[in-house]
């Protein structure tokens, strides 16, 4: 039972790679913190530093009020589920789960009852005598989980425990892990690159890019108020549509090519961008088929050429093209602009999201068809604006 805090934590590998830089994170007791970001952004590295498996180059990590920087893994009282499980191949499931307890010299009977309890929670009771090689992927994953939960540690660390399961099992295990975490109520850092996992499981979500923390907030805020272009593009599926636009001189509307969207009143501190380019973000779910709703007010609609419609049953995804200029060359990584990797990564991702193509998520009853020109009603209250040079969100209320 403890809080975990990271203060200005950085990691530079001997080969010069700066995998994590200046990470500040505070995980409350019992909190489920999700660390999310694209591959190679330093999630595993951050987790390994907390576990004590990787030396900390700069900064301080505390568990409770203890600085653990110099402590070995066994002194830190953390339990970790590895990205690739790392089960002990020569031990049975029961021995795997009970290994930590046996090392701690717990009496045999007590070990057995704890192992059985954990196995029951994870549905592994019938498999206790098997070796890992005789288990399915999902069962192995649960053994890895079991090894962590028998221990009642101060901190749980989980590194993409679900990433190799099939979709159905993943959804099932997602709720199961969340349930187990509630039950043992231990500060947890859960790493994933899957934003659905991040949004559904986390009490709070920390978005990492190129070793730098982009934003840390509750999932809904992350979605509603992304702090910068990276978070905007990363959170949400399909991704937010991003266009390059020009803010009007009165800062009350924004022009996308030939079209114009009015901005809601109350946006603050937009002065610096009057008459200048800004990045406009609109989520697919904030675009509706205008045909169903009567003529939208001027400044609340966008027209585009429909290229493709995907019917998903519960909704339709309309892929369309705007005459707005394509967004490119934005330093998404914000503060980490000096890192070439970071900038490239961000650019690559935005390049895809910010072409003049866009996606709208419309009602399944919509009659929009590919090859036609369609008109979308826009929830302008939910537009997002970003500074094209820094990538930071602007005009937020």
């Amino acid at each position, binding site marked *: 039972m403890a809080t975990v805090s990271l203060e200005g934590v950085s990691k530079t590998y001997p080969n010069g790679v700066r995998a994590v830089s200046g990470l500040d994170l505070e995980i409350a007791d019992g909190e489920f913190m999700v660390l999310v970001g694209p591959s190679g952004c330093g999630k595993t590295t951050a987790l390994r530093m907390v576990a004590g498996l990787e030396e900390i180059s700069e900064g301080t990590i505390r568990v409770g009020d203890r600085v653990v920087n110099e402590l070995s893994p066994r002194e830190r009282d953390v339990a970790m589920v590895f990205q690739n499980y*790392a089960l002990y191949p020569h031990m049975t499931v029961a021995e795997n789960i009970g290994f930590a307890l046996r*090392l701690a010299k717990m009496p045999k009977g007590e070990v057995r009852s704890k192992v059985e309890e954990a196995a029951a929670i994870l549905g592994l009771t019938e498999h206790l005598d098997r070796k890992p090689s005789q288990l399915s992927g999902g069962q192995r994953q649960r053994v890895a989980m079991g090894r962590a939960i028998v221990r009642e540690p101060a901190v749980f660390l989980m590194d993409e425990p679900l990433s190799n399961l099939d979709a159905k099992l993943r959804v099932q295990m997602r709720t199961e892990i969340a349930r187990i975490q509630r039950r043992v109520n231990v500060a947890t850092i859960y790493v994933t690159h899957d934003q659905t996992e991040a949004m559904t499981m986390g009490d709070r979500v920390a978005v990492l890019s190129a070793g730098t923390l982009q934003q840390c907030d509750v999932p809904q805020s992350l979605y509603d108020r992304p702090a910068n272009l990276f978070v905007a593009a990363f959170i949400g599926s399909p991704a937010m549509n991003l266009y390059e636009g020009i803010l009007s001189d009165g800062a009350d509307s924004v022009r996308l090519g030939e079209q114009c969207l009015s901005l809601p009143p109350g946006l603050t501190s937009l002065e610096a961008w009057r008459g200048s380019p800004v990045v406009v973000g609109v989520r697919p779910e904030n675009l509706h088929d205008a045909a169903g709703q009567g003529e939208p007010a001027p400044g609340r609609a966008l027209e585009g050429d429909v290229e493709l419609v995907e019917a998903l049953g519960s909704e339709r995804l309309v892929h369309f093209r705007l005459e707005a200029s394509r967004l490119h060359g934005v330093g998404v990584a914000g503060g980490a602009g000096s890192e070439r990797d970071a900038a490239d990564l961000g650019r690559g991702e935005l390049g895809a999201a910010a072409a003049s193509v866009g996606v709208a998520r419309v009602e399944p009853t919509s009659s929009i068809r590919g090859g036609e020109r369609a008109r979308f009603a826009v929830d302008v209250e939910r537009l997002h604006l970003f500074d094209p040079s820094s990538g930071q969100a602007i005009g937020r209320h």
Partner: protein
Amino acid sequence: MTGRLRMRVVVRETGFYLGVLVVIAIALFPFYWILRTSLESDGQVAAGVGGKNGLLPSHLTLSSYVNDFTQQHFLTPLVNSIVVALATTFVTIIVATLAGYALARLNIRGAGAILGFVLLAGFFPVLAMIGPLFLLLKDLGMLNSIYPLIVIYLVYTLPISTWLLRNFFAQIPRELEEAALVDGATRLQALVKVVAPVAVPGVFTAAILSFILAWNDFAFAVSFLETPSHFTAPLSIVTFGQSQFQVFYNRIDAAVVIISVPIAALVLILQRRIVSGLTAGSFR
């Protein structure tokens, strides 16, 4: 259609196994010949040196085996060999495991150079070692003793075993022992309880190699041992068949069979442990 396909498979499989059979026959024939000769009597050998007695032995007898132990006192050299080989293997495994682990896992500066150097020592020519070692042992008053042999064999078993085990440890994913560390193990506990059991196939391979090397050595033994009671088995065999008029190959071959049995048994027993897939199921 399927019938013809079946035919082709059958023909191909038959061909394959015939080929295997030929190779095995060629490989095992010398050993068969040794076994056959060892079961002949002195008289048979005298009559039919050079295979004149035919491919199959006409009359089987264990007389040469009995003779080896009663007349030639083969038991002492056999025990000597067992002591030397087991001691060499034991020391090799302990030292090579620790050294191999250190070279594979700890961030030792110049680990590659150390490994190369260690390996180089193992390639040092035996004949170049014998002269200096003889003088050394003589000055130390340790000639005609089997114990210095253990140290000398280590010069050859340690490099190859260290190298082999280092590669084995390097193949075992780091996460396995890291999981143990997080579970509360010390480094030594992680090595003993997790890494070593997983590396068992490598440990057995090194053990077999070391045992065989020590068991089979002739060059060092013949150079440093003087009296028959201190001989190792391979050395003592040479003295067996000696008679003024003829060589009793049956006695030599009986001894060869005897010293081959432990090796064959060792390999057969341990090879089941040397299966691949050592971390099967441990990772996804």
